[in-house]
Each structure stands twice: as structure tokens, then as C-alpha cells.
């Protein structure tokens, strides 16, 4: 166990090193820098341009900039986000919790709904509820999240005005609102993007949960449970599910990278000011330190979550002695 955790940590460190290097190297090929838009006009004398670039280290050779950047990173400094006129660490400190909130709520909703759907499908195997939900979950996996997000935003948001179209809080002087009203406002803004993300998660979870349950339902101990006179739901909930949840929890770690990818698009569609939106803005503004930080942090989250779920999935794996 300890060995596995150490290996995991080393792997995580390797991922981060690879990502940091790769992103930095690639950005060297990118045209322009954060000052291109502001400074490369005709009115700015070359000496001023040089001075500004020198102040933020953009005149140094790439190798030296890389060493500087890594060194600063080791001290927890992420650099200065010129496009936001704030240190990267501040921008990130605002954005990361919002993304974690969105992804966390979507994961919780998605897994709860997906497991329930899987249970219903297994309960009514090959009858109409199974077939109907099977078609729906297939659609949920096949339909890209951004499309669902687009539809939800347009109809539920713009057309019927049930939910806000964009942002994380209502316009106006919300800072003076009481705390519970602000919390409700946040939930109201969170609802659409979180549910849209959760639909995709739920569809994938349900497909795996159904298959895992059907595999377990053929086991002898399920027959024993039925012979004891347990109702079908009790059999499913107490005897099948605990033995069929392992592969679904393992999915958590596997699904996370793609969920974070999906969240990037959803944040952009719903204007949710998390890491995804920050990444898009930073890319458009050619704000390298911010881009690097965004990609690195997204990877950190994915790697850490994956390592965690591996440990969790291992601890719930069926305890079973081999039949001699």
C-alpha cells in the first residue's frame, strides 16, 4: 500500500514536470506576447516596448525564462497575469474554487443519478424501463456536453428566463445581500452548468453501473438473498450494489480528465468564471503565465483525484478468498 502511494506520488510529480515543460516549450512557438496588443501600436517608441518587456523578463532567452519560472514556481509564485493586472496566484485563487464547486457538484449529482438509473435498469432488466433509460443514457453519452449546455442556456435561460444566462452572481449590489440570499443566488447560477455537466456523468455512470449490477446479479449469494425472502430492491441495494460499486468508483478517476475538459467548455458557454474561462481569456490575451498556471492546475486536480480514486477503488474491491 505504502509502495503504491509512493509510486503514485512519483507519477504525479512526473506528470506535472512533463506538462510544465511541454506547455512552456509550446508557448515559445506562439506568436505575440501580453504586450503585443497594448504596445505594438505605431505610437509607442521601441525603447518603451523594450523597457516593459524587460521588466517582466520577456527579453530573456527561453531557457532562462523557463528556469526562472520553475524557480518561482518552487516558491509558490506563479508570476504576474498582465491581462488581469493581478498576480497569477490571485487570479487562480479566485477561479479554482469556482471550478472545483462546479465539477464537484456535477460529479456528486452525476454519480448519484447514474447509480440510481443503473439500479432501476438492473431491476427491470430487458423490460421497458431498462430500454427507455438505456436509450436515454446512450444519448447522454453520445451528445457532446457543450450542445446540451447550449440548448439549456438558450431555452431555460434566455427564452424562458428560469435560470440566469451567464455568470456566477446577479448583477447589482449583491455584496450587501444577506448571506443566505447570496448563497441561493450562487446556487441559482450554478444550477444549469452543473446539471448539464452532471447529465454526461450520469449517463456514463449509469451504463457502467447497469453492466456491473447485471454481472453481480447472476452470483450465488444473490440467489441466497432472494431465498431469504428479501424484496428485489433490498437484494439490489444491500447485496448487489456493494459488490458492483467498485468498478463504478474506479470510473471516477478515469472520468475526471474528460470532465475537466467538458467543464472548460461549459464554463465558457455559461460564463462561469472558473479556470476554464480563465484559460480561454488568457489564451486570447496571450497571457502565458496565466495559461501555464491554468493548464498546470487542471492537471494537478486531475492527477490528485485520479490517485485518490485509485486508492478508494482498491479499498472497496470485493474481499474474497480464492476457491481452491
Amino acid at each position, binding site marked *: 500500500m505504502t509502495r503504491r502511494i509512493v509510486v503514485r506520488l512519483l*507519477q*504525479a510529480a*512526473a*506528470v506535472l514536470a*512533463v*506538462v510544465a515543460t511541454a*506547455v512552456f516549450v*509550446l*508557448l515559445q*512557438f*506562439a*506568436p505575440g506576447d501580453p504586450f503585443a496588443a497594448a504596445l505594438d501600436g505605431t505610437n509607442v517608441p521601441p525603447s518603451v516596448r523594450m523597457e516593459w518587456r524587460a521588466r517582466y523578463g520577456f527579453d530573456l532567452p527561453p531557457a532562462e525564462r523557463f528556469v526562472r519560472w520553475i524557480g518561482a514556481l518552487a516558491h509558490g509564485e506563479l508570476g504576474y497575469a498582465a491581462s488581469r493586472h493581478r498576480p497569477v496566484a490571485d487570479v487562480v485563487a479566485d477561479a479554482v474554487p469556482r471550478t472545483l464547486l462546479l465539477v464537484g457538484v456535477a460529479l456528486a449529482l452525476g454519480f448519484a443519478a447514474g447509480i440510481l438509473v443503473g439500479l432501476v435498469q438492473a431491476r427491470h432488466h*430487458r423490460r421497458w424501463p431498462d430500454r427507455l433509460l438505456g436509450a436515454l443514457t*446512450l*444519448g447522454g*453519452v*453520445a*451528445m*457532446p456536453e*457543450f*450542445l446540451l449546455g*447550449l*440548448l439549456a442556456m*438558450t*431555452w431555460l435561460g*434566455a*427564452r424562458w428566463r428560469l435560470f440566469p444566462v451567464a455568470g456566477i452572481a446577479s448583477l447589482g449590489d449583491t455584496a450587501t445581500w444577506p448571506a443566505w440570499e447570496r448563497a441561493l443566488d450562487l446556487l441559482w447560477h450554478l444550477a444549469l452548468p452543473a446539471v448539464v455537466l452532471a447529465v454526461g456523468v450520469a449517463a456514463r455512470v449509469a451504463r457502467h453501473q447497469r*453492466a456491473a449490477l*447485471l454481472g453481480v446479479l447472476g452470483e450465488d449469494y444473490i440467489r441466497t438473498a432472494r431465498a431469504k425472502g428479501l424484496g428485489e430492491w433490498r437484494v439490489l441495494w444491500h447485496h448487489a450494489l456493494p459488490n458492483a460499486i467498485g468498478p463504478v468508483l474506479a470510473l471516477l478517476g478515469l472520468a475526471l*480528465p*474528460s470532465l*475537466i*475538459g*467538458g467543464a*472548460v*467548455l461549459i464554463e*465558457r458557454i455559461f460564463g462561469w468564471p472558473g479556470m476554464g474561462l480563465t*484559460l*480561454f481569456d488568457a*489564451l*486570447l490575451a496571450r497571457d502565458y503565465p496565466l*495559461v501555464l498556471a491554468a*493548464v498546470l492546475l*487542471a*492537471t494537478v486536480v*486531475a*492527477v490528485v483525484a*485520479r490517485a485518490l480514486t485509485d486508492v478508494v477503488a482498491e479499498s472497496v474491491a470485493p474481499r474474497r478468498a480464492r476457491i481452491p
Partner: protein
Amino acid sequence: MAGHTWRRLLADRTARAAAGVLGAAALAAVLAPWIAGYDPTAQPDPVALRLAAPSWQHPFGTDPFSRDVCSRVLHGARISLGVAAGAMLLSVTLGTTLGALAAVLGGWVDGVVSALVDVLIAMPRLLVVIALVATFGALSPWWLVVLIGGSGWLTTARIVRAEVRDHQQREYVTAARALGASRWRIVWRHLLPAVAPQVAVAAALALAAVIPLEAALSFVGLGIQPPLPSWGNILLDGSDYLTTAWWLVVFPMAAITLTVGSALVLADRLRVAIAGEGRPS
């Protein structure tokens, strides 16, 4: 063995239907210039034909520039499915080669490939591709194929490596070796055909992953650039008119969902055929 798997798949009605949908989509993409009624970029009458609802002349309606949506979706299939097929082929070829090499050669090759897979698989693919595309600016479809395909070989490599290692232990391989067959002959004549069904599963899943990826990229303006139509950028164009001109979004959306869904179903049925269960589960 592998032969039985293909026979079982052919006997499966659901699998045939899914393959039929994919085949029809591919055919429509190939024949688009001949079956599309209009030039996808032509703007015959931007005033009178602006946002016309579906009719006999324009079965999927027209867009704000009076372009025929049906023709655009058909030509979009050419680009979207072409990029997807190319990326899928690239990632499956890369994955199969690397996975098979790792399993057959073992040693440090296996160590490097396995470590690479373990490390890279934790990275959010969409994020990486977006960052790359945004960095390089607008890319040609060929570069998209390289980027999307080059980032998707991990799962295939993992599956192929495990399968080849499994088959290497089996008796028929030992028997072939005993008869004096060379290592590469065994790989080519025995191991690759044996793992082909698993590679097909990986290919179907890869297709189901890359179609939405291209659509997502084009939708945020980082993929296929107008005036070249792709399902993603048709959706981008239509997204502003969702409440007034539903046909701009519904048809490309249906095209994406149908093809991705068919690829997923095909992967499911392939797995069932490999497991050897004739009955649907």
C-alpha cells in the same frame, strides 16, 4: 477465436444497424459534392432566403446568409468525419504499434511506453488540445488530425499491450514458436489477428471520442475555420439563432449524436461478441 467474434458480430442485428448508420454517414460524406443540392458556401439570396424554414427546396432550411443547411451538413460531414476518421486511424495505429512493441519487446521499451501511458492518461485531453490549438493559432484540418490523433493513442496502447501479453502466454503461440516461427512472424500472423477485435473496440471508442472533440474545438472557434463547413462551426453559426431558427442547430446536432451513438453501440456489441455471449445483455 477472432474469426468467431466477427461472425457473432455479423449475426447481431443491433451491431448491423449501428454499422449501417456509420456506413451511411461515411457514404454521405464521400458523395457530398454529388448529392448536396447546393454549393455549401453559395449565398443565393441573403435577403429573401435568409433563415428560411425547412422546405422541399431546402430540406434543412437556410442559414442567415441564405446558405443551404442540408448541403452544409453534408459537406460538414466530409470535414468532420474526415478529421475524425483520420485522427482515429492515427491514434489506433500509434496505439497498436506502441502497445504491441511494448508487449513483444518488454524490457525498457515496455517500461517507457507504460510509464508514458500512465503519466499522460491523467491529463485532460480536451484542455491539452485546446491549449495547443490556441497556441498555434488557426490550423489546417491536417494539423487537427495530427493533434487530435496524437493525443488519443493511450487507451489503445494500454488495451493492445494487455491483450498481446495475454495471448503470448497461450498454447498456440508456444506451439508456433516450437515450430520455429520467428518472433515477428508470430506477431504478424498470430498475435495481431487475435487482438484485432479488441483493437476494433478501441477504434470505435476512439471515433466516439474524436467526433465531439472536433465539434467542440470548432464550436469555440479553434477548429475548422469558416468558410469551410464542419458540424462544429455550423453549430457555432447556428447558436445565435437557437430560439428563432432551430433547424440551424438541430440537424448538425442530430448528425453528431447519431454517429457518436452508433460508434458507442458498435463498441458495446463488439465487446459482447468478444465475450462470446450471443444474447443481448
